[in-house]
């Protein structure tokens, strides 16, 4: 006669580990982007296709993690992080994977090329946005430490610093984006206008990647401020 124990049902699965695993997965997606753009600058469309496929695979793995986390998050939570905020963070994290997949998908579908004069700037921009995602991941990785300290004291400062540096990275990506747009503007007349239109769109998307990463950090700040 095993009695259902209030003690075991008290311990809901902590969303922290799944949240961190999800973040690891979406960062893997983003990691593919610099490789992808390097390949598309080299007009190596086969590699592009391969990378896009692997991004799509990782994205769906991340989706699975997200669904799992949502399914196992109890309705009534008594925890250091409100349920809504956990769901919000996972939604934002998921955008990193989705954006990576969208960008690589459209680029692959259109066999889009990157004009030679802006390749280096373009890759640098992509790399920096991926850096932003990684910085957000670093902060999310501190969540278990935050719980261990009960969201108090110097651990808060450590994470606060990480988020500040995330903000710096994000504004660097903004600067790089402006530079890149300016460089594109100077050469755009020499290329098919439609291709240029789409490339601008891609830049938009990549910029969003950094924005979303920063928003993850901002949500973490909200958690700490409570």
């Amino acid at each position, binding site marked *: *006669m*095993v*009695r*259902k*124990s*209030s*003690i*075991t*049902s*008290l*311990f*809901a*699965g*902590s*969303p*922290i580990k799944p949240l961190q695993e999800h973040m690891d997965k979406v960062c893997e997606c983003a990691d593919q982007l610099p490789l992808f753009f390097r390949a598309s600058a080299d007009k190596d469309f086969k590699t592009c296709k391969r990378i896009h496929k692997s991004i799509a695979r990782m994205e769906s793995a991340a989706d699975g993690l997200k669904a799992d986390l949502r399914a196992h*998050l*109890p*309705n*009534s*939570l*008594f*925890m*250091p*992080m409100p349920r809504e905020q956990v769901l919000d963070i996972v939604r934002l994290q998921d955008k990193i994977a989705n954006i990576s997949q969208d960008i690589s998908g459209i680029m692959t579908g259109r066999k889009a090329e990157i004009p030679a004069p802006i390749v280096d700037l373009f890759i640098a921009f992509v790399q920096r946005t991926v850096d932003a995602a990684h910085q957000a991941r670093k902060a999310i990785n501190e969540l*278990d*430490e935050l*719980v*261990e*300290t*009960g*969201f*108090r*004291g*110097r*651990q808060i400062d450590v994470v606060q610093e990480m988020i500040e540096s995330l903000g710096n990275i994000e504004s660097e990506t903004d600067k790089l984006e402006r530079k890149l747009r300016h460089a594109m503007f100077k050469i755009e007349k020499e290329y098919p206008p439609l291709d240029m239109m789409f490339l601008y769109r891609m830049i938009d998307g990549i910029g969003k990647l950094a924005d979303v990463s920063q928003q993850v950090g901002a949500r973490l700040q909200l958690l700490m401020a409570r």
Partner: protein
Amino acid sequence: MESVLVSNAGIYIGMAVVFGLFMAWGIGANDVANAMGTSVGSGALTFKQAVLIAAVFELSGAVLAGGEVTKTIRKGIIDVSSLGDTPELLVYGMLAALLAAGIWLLVASRQGWPVSTTHSIVGAIVGFGAVGIGMDAVHWGKVGTIAASWVTSPVLAGTISFLLFRSIQKLVIDTDNPVAMAKRYVPYYIFMVGFVIAMVTMIKGLKHIGIKMDMDQNIMVAAIVGASIMAIGTLMIRRIRIDPSADRDFHFTNMEKIFGVLMIFTAMAIAFAHGSNDVANAIGPVAAIVGIVQSAGEIVAKSATPAWILWLGGGGIVLGLATYGHKVIATVGSGITELTPSRGFAATLGAAVTIVLASGIGLPISTTHTLVGGVLGVGLARGIGALNGNVIKTIFMSWIVTLPAGAGLAIFFFFTFKEMFS
């Protein structure tokens, strides 16, 4: 009238012992796991160690400090003087209460309902008392106090646990060198565990086994107990190997190892506390029956609980633990993964102190609910990743469901026994 009691004395005592042993077995098989779950779940104890600690300290808690709650169950709820010349009614009632609580717990467990042993037995006794003997037979004031303690005990445990956790946050976790600070302060917490448990036991428990000491002696002995386990704990902490590379992924791994030592002593405290409080659920009614039968109907208000009955209860708990409870401890322990030793300690000690206090003043409370209170207290300090708030609802449900069920069954069995024996 006395002839019924005298002629059936053997049967009554025999039934009481069998039913009581069954209840004690059930407590050992099921409830102990809840008390030990936090220690196993936090990884401070392997499950074998937990079973061993539970066996030793449940038994000592039952024998050394189980007397006061037993007294409450035995004669605090029913006003024995109202029985007049029909003392055998109390025998039927107590037998009925044991059987009712035992069966109800069995049924509820099968169905997976959250129930409490304490609530079942109290509900059963109040039930047969109010219906079988008469509304006046129930000490409603005492029942009110017991019911109130079911609310206050989780709250008190939560408060103590919250404060304990805040204190280790301040003294240890939020410092430049948590490992060094843990080494410095954990021995004092160990002292506190030993002192508090020894103190309450000596003030309230030992008189039931015939030892009496004055206050100064109590404090001295408690301090000696505290100091000696503090010394043992300090030695154990010295033997811990600090591995800096373990802190790379999670920065508090080594600090938690030190709290693991503290958790071992806290586990002993909660096992002791549980034994001291819950043993009464099984043997309180037995003590009442034996008391009446042996005095052949003279309801002696002053007689103490015989020590062999405490041993019976403690032994029954250990038996339940050995035959079945060890499996449940493993199940419950593996269900608790979010707890690190530092919070396991705060939650468990808060509960243990509350339960031992309740045992000291003779209040039967639910160990599980108190422990839930302790865990929620740490949760309020944002110390645990996620807790399921629904549990609070199920606790209220278990009150609402268990009391009438225990009472109803007890009333049924009471009239059955009355028919059978007359």
